[in-house]
């Protein structure tokens, strides 16, 4: 149900401790990239039904940004990683 999130730093914590920032799959363009690339980054969302990654900010805990991978239809949580770790793995 996405009610409990296992923070990699703090352990199992209730959803109310987090602020949800939104889609973590968007990749920030280079500063001089086209207006279209920036428009897509700021405004356009894939909005998948099913597996999705989201930035959750653990404001009432470690205050780290996390990437929560979960299902938008069943609310099942697959994994939670620190955002820096996620970015390293994705080679961003």
């Amino acid at each position, binding site marked *: 149900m996405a009610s409990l999130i296992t923070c990699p730093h703090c352990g199992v914590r*209730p959803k109310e401790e987090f602020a949800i920032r*939104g889609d973590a799959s968007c990749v920030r363009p280079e500063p001089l990239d086209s207006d*279209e690339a920036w428009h897509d980054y700021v*405004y356009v969302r894939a909005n998948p*039904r099913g597996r999705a990654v989201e930035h959750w900010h653990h404001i009432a805990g470690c205050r780290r940004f996390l990437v929560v991978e979960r299902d*938008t239809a069943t*609310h099942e949580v697959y994994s939670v990683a620190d955002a820096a770790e996620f970015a390293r793995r994705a080679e961003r």
Partner: protein
Amino acid sequence: MRYSAFSIVRNALSGNLNWKPHWRQPQPKSHYDVIIIGGGGHGLSTAYYLAKEFGVKNVAVLEKGYLGSGNVGRNTTIVRSNYMLPGNEPFYEFSMKLWEGLEQDLNYNVMLSQRGVIMLYHSDAQRDAYVRRGNAMWMEGVAAELIEREQLKKMIPFLNYDHARYPILGGLLQRRAGTARHDAVAWGYARGADRHGVDIIEHCEVTGIRRENGRVTGVETTKGFIGCGKLALAAAGNSSRVGEMADLKLPLESHVLQAFVTEGLKPCIDHVIVYGGGHFYISQSDKGGLVFGAEIDGYASYAQRGNLATAEHVMEEGVAMIPGLSRVRVLRAWGGVMDMSMDGSPIIDRTSIDNLYLNCGWCYGGFKATPASGYCFAHLIAKNDTHPVAHALRLDRFARGYAVDEAGAGPQPNLH
């Protein structure tokens, strides 16, 4: 059959055995001039106005479930036009005017009740903001009244005026606003569209959009291929999924919003009351149940059910505003999938594909817009030109830098 006092008497005398279904259950034809995907309030009102006002009668509405199974049957039934921004207010006022004539127009009782919507303020800053909003409404010709604390106490005595954190100092009232029976709106539009020759096809899910030479030629459905001259999307929370079939990328994120209803009570809440300390709104249905809701749960979701933490938060807001609510038992809670846009305002526009039209992004305010949304969308489809009150609601506003951001929250859908 036209409904009237006479028809009630006549049917009563014949044992109420001769009432006809509101709409037919036709098999899809092989081709329509216009196909509308989505048989919710907006899809049905679009079909109705296309046929009635714009003379386009060879129309089909495709609905994947049963009629009224989506957000039109899941909302808190509030209709109002108390918006601030010039891109929004004329549109919602157009809708309010259509609401006021809707029952005569449809020959159907949608139980419109103009009981007044009052938005409470709890600080001097919030009062200033509501004065500004009221003035913005007056500039578009819409009446708004600022109700000060003492006057409000006479009007609505049961509020928690002396709450330590959010004392109630007054409110902004739109008297013409109120509620309408949501199911009746869906049924009334469906019946009206059907009477003008529109085919409403239930349990017909669109599985693909067929294109040739950059134009839509028809849709693949669970009932086979159906050809069309123009295709209109009114799929609300599933807009991204349907848009994907035509390679559209949309500025939307789907979120779940919960609503609640209590056991039936004697008449006690006369208005729609909106809490300003959070975002909680409540009214009393004609059956007596208190109907209320608050914000979306906060994470992207396609599930028509919500989170218990949000339910608890909603109850806390309600009790902070009306302490007496703590003794009322909640009967039901449900969730709906909201097509949250990036500025909190809707989109009615053409797309990059010539004969494909788009209606989405209603966030959690789509019900009040049902008549105007349908009218403006029908205008767009029939004339290939934007209706004057929907000029600011075009898809390219984000790229042009003309977002219509009523909340001032920026491009983050879960904050609108």
